């Protein structure tokens, strides 16, 4: 049988996610300049990691599953970095926003 997780861990996971939702909502009304986007993305990535680790059981699952999960992100990184690299170096996108 698979390891059954303590229900309190799920409740805490959900509580942490709701706190982070409140945080990202509140920070959106504070002017941090370009850091608004960075903070919003950092919080979103943290929330995604929490969901993957605890709700989707990445924590405690096999290496093979870790590899499959990370592979998707690696391909996304290739898509984003090569495309943005192209746009930015051609001067099609202004970088001062």
């Amino acid at each position, binding site marked *: *049988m*698979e390891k*059954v*997780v303590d*229900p309190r861990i*799920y*409740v805490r*996971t*959900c509580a942490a*996610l*709701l706190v982070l*939702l409140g945080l*990202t*909502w509140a920070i*959106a*009304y*504070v*002017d*941090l300049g370009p850091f*608004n*986007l960075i903070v*919003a*993305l950092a*919080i*979103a990535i943290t*929330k*995604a990691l929490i*969901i*993957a680790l*605890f*709700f*989707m059981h990445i924590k405690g*699952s*096999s290496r*093979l*599953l870790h590899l*499959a*999960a990370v*592979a*998707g*992100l690696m*391909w*996304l990184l290739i*898509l*984003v970095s090569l*495309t*943005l690299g192209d*746009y930015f170096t051609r001067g*099609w*996108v*202004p*970088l001062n*926003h």
Partner: protein
Amino acid sequence: MPILTSPPSESALVAEQFDDIEQQRDAAKLGMWIFLASEVLFFGGLFLSYTIYRFTYGHVFMETSRRLDVVLGGTNTAVLLVSSLLMAFAVRAAQLDQRRALVRLLLGTALLGCVFMSIKMVEYHKDYVEHLVPGTHFEWTGADPSNAELFFWIYFAMTGLHAIHVTVGIGVLLVLALLASRGKFSGGNYNAIEIGGLYWHFVDVVWVFLFPLLYLVGHR
């Protein structure tokens, strides 16, 4: 008659190509994670176009983003996060072979999915009434109307694709609840629940990125 009274043996639940139920479960989960990786790229293309236009027309995007309803969008984020909690409990109930709890939790998750879709429909209706839907009906009094319209194209494409995923998820949950009520997932044979759960959590993750990027960019 021991054959009729004994519970289904593990070997009856394992397909021919697998050594045991453990290996069968691992294979199912691996397949699902590979599918989710392809979904990451599916949504990734849309997130990438959002990123490029966001950098190009930053000021327009901030103005247009302000027209979206943050309270409805934020409430919907909370609804999905709580639905994920119920889904995690559903998988746990399946692991512990608690049939009644499993059915209730699956229905509860589907219900929260319906709440999400209802709020989304209220929002879409509001956008329609306010002439924010791209096309001949679109009206924009601020600067740069064509790029404002572009923001709403991206908004409807991304939230629309996400809404389709939620709708599919609700259907999957209802079918799983029906099968669970017939005792299909007893005796450790709960792959379908676990995989359905992975899908539901993934849809939640997508919204976790959509909410700040679409609704919150314009408020500072």
